[in-house]
């Protein structure tokens, strides 16, 4: 069953200069998909448009069959969409517990404490110091908190924008191990990533975005040797979407 479907999406910050130009793809429920592409290809803009943070100028986004095009980000959270931005993805002046309590407000009152405890069980580094300011966490721990916050509301689709950005190789490994565990729970994952090797190791399917258009949509394995990816990034190959 289709969890997320984009049809001819146009999005950006200026209607006359769209960054995302007519992108279409679907993601099946429980699938893990990575979106790759050179800098400036429009990957982050596209994922932000899906998450309600960037205006959509045309096309359609559907979540489990429901049209969610242009809905505000806070509305989308309630509909089962989780999003972890690339940077500044936690409230540093609030405690770890308060970060989770805010997200838990969307849940029925009787479920809140249980879900927060479940997140602390999943991320013991956070559970050991709930009243510490989130600003005191390391880069990897911040990504863990951001993921815990997004997972707390049990989203059907979880989108992450470059979760490895600015992290050491060791922390990148930790973050991707966590994402693997999340994926194994059946959550649909959509991942924008610059760390190609790590992303292809996690997901079954890869999309390549070049200049705001989908240049490739196929199994992640096909991109492992790097030759095809290099050609796509350099623009020598295009319009392979759906191959």
């Amino acid at each position: 069953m289709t969890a997320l479907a984009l049809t001819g999406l146009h999005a950006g910050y200026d209607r006359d200069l769209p960054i995302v130009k007519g992108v279409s793809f679907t993601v099946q429920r429980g699938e893990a998909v990575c979106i790759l592409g050179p800098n400036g290809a429009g990957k982050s803009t596209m994922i932000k448009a899906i998450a309600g943070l960037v205006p959509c100028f045309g096309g359609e986004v559907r979540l489990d069959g429901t049209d969610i095009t242009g809905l505000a980000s806070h509305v989308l959270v309630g509909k089962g969409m989780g999003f972890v931005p690339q940077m500044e993805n936690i409230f540093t002046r609030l405690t770890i517990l308060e970060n989770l309590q805010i997200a838990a407000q969307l849940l029925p009152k009787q479920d809140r404490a249980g879900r927060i405890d479940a997140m602390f069980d999943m991320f013991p580094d956070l559970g050991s110091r709930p009243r510490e300011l989130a600003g005191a966490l390391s880069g990897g721990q911040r990504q863990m908190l951001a993921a815990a916050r997004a997972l707390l509301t049990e989203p059907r689709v979880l989108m992450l924008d470059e979760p490895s950005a600015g992290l050491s190789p060791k922390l990148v490994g930790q973050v991707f191990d966590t994402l693997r565990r999340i994926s194994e729970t059946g959550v649909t994952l959509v991942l924008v990533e610059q760390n190609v090797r790590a992303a292809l190791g996690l997901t079954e399917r890869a999309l390549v975005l070049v200049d705001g258009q989908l240049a490739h949509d196929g199994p992640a394995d096909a991109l492992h040797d790097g030759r095809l990816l290099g050609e796509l990034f350099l623009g020598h190959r295009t319009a392979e979407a759906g191959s």
Partner: protein
Amino acid sequence: MNPQAIIDGLISGSTIGLGAIGLTLTYSILRFANFTHGDFLAWGAYLTLTVAGVLGGLAAGLGAPVYPFSFGWGLPLAVLGGVALTVALALGLDRILFGRLRARGADTIIIVMASFGASMALRSLLEFIFTAKPAYFTKALQIANPLGLGMRATPDQLLVIGLTLLLVLVLHLVVTRSATGRAMRAVSENPALAGVYGIDVGKVVRVTWIIGAGMACIAGVMAGLLVQIRPYMGFDLLLPLFAAAILGGIGSIPGAMLGGLIIGLAEAFAVQIVGAEWRAAVSFVILVLVLMLRPQGIFGQRGA
């Protein structure tokens, strides 16, 4: 030096602090210096006076002073109406002016200039409706009671200090312990991320106006009760309000209150040391010193 300056400073500082709370919340959550905030104080006082007049007309007994204060039960009841009307004024102004500018993505300076223009319009409208002649909640005379150490205060003045401390405590608890307070702090730090967390930012903005305008109305009533009501009373308080908000640290409710008390005390001591004509300069000097030496204020965070 006369120790009475301490009581005088605490009394005027209470009004300044309560007014500065709304200003600091607006500044931290809506991210602009709201020049209309002073006028919310004046409008709050006049609207409360109007409601008190209506209540007095309906039941004459409500105006009879309740010992030991100079006012009757009509005033506390009128404050409820005044707060509701001032909140409606603030929400209406946000809907027709500030909200539209935010939706268009207007620069902060445009919104600040808009608030400056709206401030002048609100002030002129007050003068047009109520005239520039001072008005009073009560004309009953009160005797200041000795408090020891050469200080004296009237029951009304002590009530103002006590009520202010109570309101600040309640607001501080709301902001630090409640879900609404957490949402306000989150929006203050990063509005876009707040949406991703599932917070309805528009609702938080409305709550901010409600708290800010409500506190402004009560501060205006306090100032009107202890001195007099004038269309320019809020405008005259604007500089001390900004100085208190910045001194306490933008976004901090205890900071705004402490800043207000420091400004009030500094003004009261300045009156004794250098003369009453320098009173207004004190806020300006403190504002400049804070911006130069500790721009984040007492409780503010660097870079916040």
